[in-house]
Each structure stands twice: as structure tokens, then as C-alpha cells.
């Protein structure tokens, strides 16, 4: 059966983030992790493709063992196999080091047809991992994808950017990152599969299990390095006014008049 590799990420729950004062990277072990919200659309896309074409789905993530519940959640929705890439040596990876490990792991799962990911993750907001992974796998990459379907002789992908909508033909295997606006719905997990997931454990791959060059891993293998972090002081600029809303509105209107935005 043809395979979809679905990559997901556990991200710190907003508002709970702590930064390691020495390495300036996120302290991940202590964090409460949630499923990266933009991954939801990649999961829904996978579920639709599986329904229509009968793929076998591998959900894969890199992270500390506390992301396992998220893998199981995705198992409950769509996955057939779970893979966790976990090793201390991966800690502090930038997007290139992350993509390298992902790409090496995905190669191990060959042959596969599609690699799907969310457009970006909300902790980094870089959007870099899907195209970087694709480049390392020497596969075509498409970002901002909102539809994928098969026609007689080829696959068709629709992507949407600020310029408009493109319809492209592409043959698998390829890597696509899914537009957060693609669906406003993620189907719930099935109870049966959630129960199954309780006793099923993901395949855990550490650095030694993969064909990896140690110099390319983790903080030291990351070409981008944080050299300094500092706090930005807030400059206090003006006046603060309290009062009932109509008083505040009068004040605002007079400022808008002063600035020539509205006529007195």
C-alpha cells in the first residue's frame, strides 16, 4: 500500500515557555506540549487522502518522550504507525539540523508517496522545515497547499498564496506543507483507535538507529547560533487616562482631530 508520512510537532503551550539561560534554547523537557495548531490541517488532509485512496499513514515527530501522547492522538485520528525520533543529541537543533534528522528517518521509511506537514509551527514561525526536508530528500516541495488529488495520470496540487491560486501537476513522491486555512475542521479521533493506542507504543529511533553524521546534530550541528539575548526595555512614552468609556472616546477624538485624521 502507498504510504503517507505525516510529520507533526509538539509545541509549548502558549504562555508556558521557558528559555534556558545558558544555551538560549527552549527548555523542552519541562514543558507542557500541545499539538502544533497548523499541523491540524495536515492531519485532516491526510485523513481525507487516506479515505479516498487508502494510504497507509506513518505519523512521525522529533522530540522528547513527552510528545508520545500527541502521536497517540494522531494515531486515534488517522495513523497506522507511530515513529518518535528522540535522542539527547537532537536537543537544540535549528531548522536545518531538524530537517536532516527528519529526512534521514523518512528515507528509512521508503518507499512512500507523500510527506505532509503543517505550514509552520507556532513556536518558531519559520515555515522552513518542510522545504529544507524536501531539499535534503531531493524531492519537489510545495508550500501553502490547500488541496491534493489524483487524476488519471498525475497528482494535482492546489496552493494558495497572496498572489492567487495555482494548480500544479506533480508526481509523487513530494513534500507538501498544508495551508492553515485549508480546512476549519479536524475530525475527532475514533474511540476504538484511541483504546488501541493506549497499548500501542511508537517505534522510537535514536541517533544510533539512523544513518546520521554526529557533527550535524543538535545545538552543535546547527549552523545558526544564538550569540546574545537581551531584554528590551519598554520606553514609557505618554499619558495614561482612566475614566468611563465616553470620556475616553472624547479624548481619542480630540487626538484624531489634532493629528488631522478627522475634521473637527
Amino acid at each position, binding site marked *: 500500500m502507498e504510504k503517507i508520512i505525516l510529520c507533526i510537532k509538539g509545541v509549548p503551550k502558549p504562555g508556558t515557555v521557558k528559555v534556558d539561560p545558558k544555551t538560549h534554547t527552549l527548555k523542552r523537557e519541562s514543558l507542557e506540549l500541545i499539538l502544533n495548531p497548523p499541523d491540524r490541517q495536515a492531519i485532516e488532509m491526510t485523513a481525507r487522502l487516506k479515505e479516498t485512496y487508502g494510504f497507509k499513514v506513518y505519523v512521525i515527530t522529533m522530540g522528547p518522550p513527552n510528545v508520545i501522547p500527541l502521536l497517540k492522538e494522531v494515531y486515534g485520528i488517522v495513523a497506522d504507525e507511530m515513529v518518535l525520533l528522540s535522542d539527547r543529541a537532537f536537543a537544540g537543533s535549528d531548522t536545518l539540523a531538524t530537517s536532516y534528522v527528519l529526512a534521514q528517518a523518512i528515507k528509512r521509511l521508503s518507499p512512500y508517496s507523500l510527506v505532509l506537514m503543517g505550514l509552520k509551527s507556532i513556536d518558531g514561525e519559520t515555515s522552513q522545515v518542510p522545504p529544507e526536508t524536501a531539499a535534503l530528500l531531493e524531492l519537489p516541495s510545495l508550500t501553502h497547499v490547500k488541496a491534493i488529488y489524483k487524476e488519471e495520470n498525475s497528482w494535482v496540487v492546489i496552493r494558495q498564496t497572496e498572489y492567487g491560486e495555482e494548480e500544479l501537476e506533480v508526481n509523487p513522491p513530494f513534500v507538501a506543507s498544508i495551508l492553515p486555512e485549508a480546512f476549519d475542521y479536524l475530525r475527532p479521533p475514533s474511540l476504538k483507535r484511541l483504546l488501541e493506542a493506549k497499548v500501542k507504543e511508537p517505534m522510537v529511533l535514536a541517533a544510533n538507529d539512523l544513518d546520521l553524521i554526529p557533527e550535524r546534530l543538535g545545538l552543535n550541528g546547527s*549552523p545558526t547560533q544564538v550569540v546574545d539575548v537581551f531584554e528590551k526595555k519598554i520606553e514609557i512614552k505618554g499619558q495614561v487616562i482612566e475614566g468611563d468609556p465616553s470620556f475616553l472616546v472624547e479624548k481619542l477624538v480630540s487626538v484624531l482631530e489634532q493629528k488631522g485624521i478627522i475634521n473637527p
Partner: protein
Amino acid sequence: MFKKYRLENLEKGNLIAFGEVFQGMLHPSSIEILTPLKDLGLKLNKKVVLVCLIDDVDSFKDLELLKKCIADEIWMVCHQELAHFRDDLYAEVLVEMVKATDPCGLFFPATSIGCSLAPRIAGRLNLGLCAHVNHLEIEDGKIVMTRPTYGENIIAKLISNTSPVMATLSIGAFSAIYGEKEPKFFEVEMPSDFSWVSKLKVRRFTPAAKQPNRLSTAKVVIAGGRGLRSKENFQKLFELAEVLRAEVGATRPVCYEGWVEEDRMIGISGVTVRPKVYIGLGISGALQHTVGMENSEYIVAVNIDKEAPLVKMAHLGLIGDAPKVLDLLIKRLKK
């Protein structure tokens, strides 16, 4: 029309900016990112080169704009296969260019195309890539990139240990400037064995129906955050915007909630605005947002919390319920 140069004969070691051309039009951010690069170029004694990938010169509409820009050189790669952006092919052209001309920096506007293309090149050449950088400087001869990072008000400075240094630069973070001296134009001839193939075939392109918003050049910006409480309340900003001839902006959580499209996000992951007046309603003022509006001439914050960072940095902080203030203001102005 331009002097033709073979790729291998072009000057080496430059600072390269990607000039994003789509359907013959140059994305304005491509001009903006030249501003910090020119500064780096002067300090490092390097030339700034803007690279445009186009299908042919006749269908390129912004030549006059390029003649005024502050790049030292413009390199045009012209080929019919470049008529439409395709990630793999565009990346291969730039990969060849990096290999042949060994630039010291390679920078992209953080547009959807920039954010798709840059990581593809980084992955092909195993290069470090920083995202959404909003400040560039030189320290000890090295290019240092700045961006806000996780946590409250923390800014991180980054370097890249690989060459060229690569980054996508935040949209609107830099103001375009124009020069007196016309840049030198070259048409780049790719090696004869370069393979102009892409695994992506464009079948159809439908331009976006709606005009892109004008947030980054708006004179008045009214922005809403989670403190507006609901999508319904947020929609009222558009009513106010019409009266004030303003553009509507938003914070990230509000976009992710689906109250408004993401192209209205202000901040490090969205656009940078510099209006005469910025009014933020129900916005806390996290650094990721404020880097995108701190250079507004006059800042008004409406918040129930006196201690909110945006209230502190505002010229005028109004302490009160944002939805109520919004309702009253619209009524008052429509009178």
C-alpha cells in the same frame, strides 16, 4: 538589452538579495531589503546585488523601479521556464549562482515565496537560515541578525556559521530608499548544461480576487487583539476603518482564531507598519507584535490593564473596555 555575462564570470563574494518577481511585477519588499544590505555592504566593502528570475525582459513591468534602487548591480536570469515561480527550479538556479559566485550573504523578503525558496536552498547547500530577521548589523566582521524570540520581551542575536549567511527579512521592517546612481544591469547566462526542468507543472493560475491590503503604507492603522473578545466585535474595526480611511491590523492569536485573515497580522511574523496614528484595542503588546508597530508616529492603546506593555509604550493609554470604546467611537464619528 543588458550586457550578458556568463555565470562564472560574474564578480564573487557579494551580498545577494532575492528580487521577487511574480507575473512581471517586483514585490516591494525586494526593494526594502536592499536598505540594510547597502549598510552592510559599506561596512564590509561588498557589493549589493539584486537577483531577479524572469521569463523575458519585455514582460517585466518594473524596470524603472529597478533603475532607481540602491543595489550596485542587478542580475537578471531570463528563461522561459522561469515564467512562473516553481520552488525546485528557482532554487536550483540560485544554488548554481551561489556555487559559482560564492556570495557572503543571501537574503530574501519573508513573503510566501521567500519563505518557500530560501529553505529549499539552505537544505540543498546545508546552510544555516534565520527567519523573519528585522535588524542586521556587523560585529567583529560578522553579520549579526536580530529577531524577537520566545518569552516576553526578549530579543535574540544570531549568527550563521556557514557561508553565505542566509536569512528571510521581515516584511516592512525596512524602509525602501532610492539612490542617484543607476545600478549596473547584467543578464546572467547560466551554464549550457544547466537543466531547466522542474518536477512541478503549472496548469492554471487564478489571480487573487481581492486586492492586497495596504497595511504597510497606511497612514492610520487600527489593530485589534484578543481583548476585543469576539469575531463580531473585531469586524466592527472595519466600520471604523472606513470612517478614518484606515487599515485594519491584528495580533497573531486573533488571526489564528479566524477572526480575520492572516495577511492583517502585524509583527515579526506578519507585516511592519509605520502609520501616523496606530490605535491598538485589546492588545497586550508582546514584543513579537510591537516590533511591527513601534515606529508608528503616535500610538494609542485601549486596554483594561494599566500594566499592559502596549499601554506603557503608548503616547496615549486609555484604560477601559475595548469593545465598548469601539462602539462609542463609531457612533460618535458617524454623528
